[in-house]
């Protein structure tokens, strides 16, 4: 054994850190490069990038008020990012979380109104289940189409998001419309006892806690359970999973349904904690920002937590940037887009750096020989 292990003469802890540092350092550098490119864009429109980033910091994290604002925006991002990250571990690129959010919100609102009069914990629980079920069926269908009918999941999830938004518009303007909502068609408002309140001492609703717990549970599922292990095999090489007799179809449908369920839960939280009813505001783009969060986090559910807070902060600073620098608040979307492009580009750098690969530190005779 000593001929094989620890022979390089480095402490195992250092190797452990080196192997994991790659997934941390590369996205971080990509983030910085993306911000640098965005500076050029800001210079091109005649503003100061330094002032912009300072404003962004102040708007996102500069005061207790702005931190709370950022955390509130991070809550749905956590769940929306899981909708991308879980299927990604199975090798699927699902980008239609927005649809699951919207339907989750409508489903939750409908149940909340229908159960009006029941005890509040029953109603809130039922709303959560309804939101998860609506989102889960939606994205689970994407997984099923993928596995059983070979439909590309990226395209189908995106198209189904448009269908979901159309469906929501149809419902809130038709059967579920509150006649009192004149300018903005909405479902009937939830009674206050059915609303989800704030975490004590903060101006941030409980959705943040739900999101963080969902991320932790997802991490445990993937890293510590047999189903997660099987999913990683199938995501790593579906042919190998089949040879091992693993039930790839149920795995894919199960994981995509759970992913959609989390997005649906984000929709439910938007209704129960923020909007008070389901309306077009549900399609606020959290599903799309969630894609960026998941990619920045390398689809690691634990890494999603800080990344979602960071992106929540960038989101939150849009208003201040608009007022201070006289730039449209869509400016932050340009930044997000640039970061995303650089992140996708940075995928090509994995495995290129010796520092992250202890196998190459010494004993080149054991490493794979070129030729």
């Amino acid at each position, binding site marked *: *054994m000593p001929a*094989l*292990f620890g022979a*390089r003469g480095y402490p195992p802890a250092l*190797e*452990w850190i080196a*192997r994991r540092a790659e997934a941390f350092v590369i996205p971080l550098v990509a983030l910085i490069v993306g911000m640098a490119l965005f500076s050029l864009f800001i210079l091109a429109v005649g503003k100061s990038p330094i002032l912009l980033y300072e404003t962004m910091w102040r708007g996102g994290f500069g005061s207790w008020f702005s931190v709370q604002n950022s955390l509130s925006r991070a809550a749905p991002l956590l769940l929306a990012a899981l909708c991308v990250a879980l299927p990604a571990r199975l090798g699927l690129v699902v980008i239609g979380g927005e649809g699951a959010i919207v339907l989750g919100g409508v489903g939750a609102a409908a149940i909340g109104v229908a159960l009006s009069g029941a005890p509040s914990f029953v109603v809130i629980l039922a709303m959560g289940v309804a939101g998860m079920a609506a989102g889960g069926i939606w994205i689970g269908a994407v997984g099923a189409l993928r596995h059983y009918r070979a439909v590309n999941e990226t395209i189908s999830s995106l198209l189904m998001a448009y269908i979901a938004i159309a469906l929501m518009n149809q419902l809130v303007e038709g059967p579920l419309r509150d006649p009192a909502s004149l300018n903005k068609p909405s479902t009937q408002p939830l009674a206050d006892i059915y609303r989800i309140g704030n975490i004590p001492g903060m101006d941030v609703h409980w959705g943040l806690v739900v999101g963080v717990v969902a991320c932790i549970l997802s991490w445990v599922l993937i*890293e*510590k*359970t*047999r189903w*997660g*292990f*099987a999913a*990683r*095999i199938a*995501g*790593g*090489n579906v*042919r*190998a*999973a*089949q*040879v*091992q*007799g*693993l*039930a790839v179809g149920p795995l894919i449908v199960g994981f995509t349904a759970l992913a959609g369920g989390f997005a649906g839960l984000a929709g439910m939280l938007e209704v129960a904690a923020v909007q008070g009813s389901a309306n077009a505001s549900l399609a606020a783009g959290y599903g799309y920002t969630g894609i960026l969060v998941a990619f920045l986090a390398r689809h690691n559910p634990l890494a999603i937590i800080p990344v979602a807070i960071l992106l929540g902060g960038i989101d939150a600073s849009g208003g201040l940037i608009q007022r201070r620098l006289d730039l449209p608040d869509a400016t932050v979307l340009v930044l997000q887009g640039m970061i995303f492009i650089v992140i996708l580009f940075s995928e090509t750098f994995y495995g290129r750096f010796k520092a992250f*690969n*202890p*196998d190459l530190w010494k*004993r*080149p005779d*054991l*490493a*794979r*020989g*070129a*030729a």
Partner: protein
Amino acid sequence: MSERKAVGVETIGMTMRFGGFTALDAVSVKVPAGSFHALLGENGAGKSTLVKCMMGFYHPTSGDMLVDGREVKIASPKDASALGLGMVYQHFTLVPSLTGAENLVISREKVPGIIDWRKERGDLGVFMERMPFKLPLDVKVAELAAGEKQKLEIIKQLYLGRSFLVLDEPTSVLTPGEAQEVLGLVRDMTKAGDLTVLMISHKFHEVTAFADDVSVLRKGKLTGTGRVADLDHKAMAAMMIGDQPIAALDSRAAPKPDAEIVLKVKSLKAPDRTGLKSIRIEDLGVRSGEIVGIAGISGNGQKEFLEVLAGQRPRDAGEVLVRGSAYAATRAEARALHVRLIPEEPLKNACAPKMTVAENISFRTFDIDGNGRPISWISAGAIRAFSARLVEQFKVKTASLSSPIASLSGGNVQRAVLARELTGEVDLLIVSNPCFGLDFSAVAEIRARIMKARNAGAAVLLMSEDLDELLELSDRIFVMSDGALVYETPIAQASVQTIGEHMAGHH
């Protein structure tokens, strides 16, 4: 297309380093004009690096190239082409949906914007007159047999005016008959002084039969060179592998003709990958303690048959029985009936390349505890301990258990997969091309492991494109051609000639 006589090529002190790794260490090889030179060596010995340096794909760290005695600088494949140097790859590079003529014309360096096909066909007719072998050029390449495709690849090089050809394992996709024919034709052209050939090969009998000279590489160094006539197989093997020990095959335990039939396939019908044809296995039984080999040229339904047995391909009709019970390759069935499977190209078909060595070795066992009961929670410690034991037992060379399995050499990936599949009770072992692309010592060891499993009572179904491997290991050999088992012979009566003819579909 100019008439060009064969050119001679020589490398002097060719050295190629990749970072700290020396792939080629001062290799000097001389291939005189009009000779047939063989280049032998194990995987990773530096054969492809050498020819890639010659062809301008790599820029050697140091060393010189002479063409017809003059020093030349080859900065790119274009330069090599201008000097008349060309290469035929192991796998076909023709466009299957185009005809031979179209393939030839579009392969030219300068193709006119508008092609005058009448004129081109006329020119091609004149060109083919001068060729030693005839080929239908107006048929789509997809419809040609493998031997014809390989001939077309060679014709393409000649059409492009090349007179020095590197052939990279040119017969690996051909039947023994086709291989004989193609190499014989090439041999005649070198004798006539029209062509110089440098052939990369693994097969000693080809080298002996066709080559004039041979050069042998090991670990990037030239370890021997000489006239083929002066060397026997043993001498060449010694140059290739040096003094490393080779695992001996277990002596074959006496076959038991009345042993239990473990695998039974009856009237199986399944679609092939085109969906247009189907594979049909009328009746196949594999007994405990025997190796049944299936020979055939790649693409005759072996892959599909394996996929059916692995549960990756639905079947239209028929039965697959393991020890009498229906088998659909679910995890539970495979576990209960002790079925193990080693598909070809293990990294592509049996591993998750980015997962660690330890995780890959645990694919069969991660979801059960020591007593075989299902568990929900993965134990990283148990996975590590289990795989550490197997890595040691099967001599898998890996930098660490946490390395991604893709970082291992091909032989070690296969060792890891064997460790996983051969540990525990094995009643049925299904193997496909287990030694494809592996080096000598790995091949010997892997064949020994398979024989050992047979001797321990496993029923082994071995599909292989390597006839030598089948003859060495099998108790019985079937030939698969056009989706069906067309011929069966016990090993004692097996003849390469007859098997080759059935592979080619001549019966």
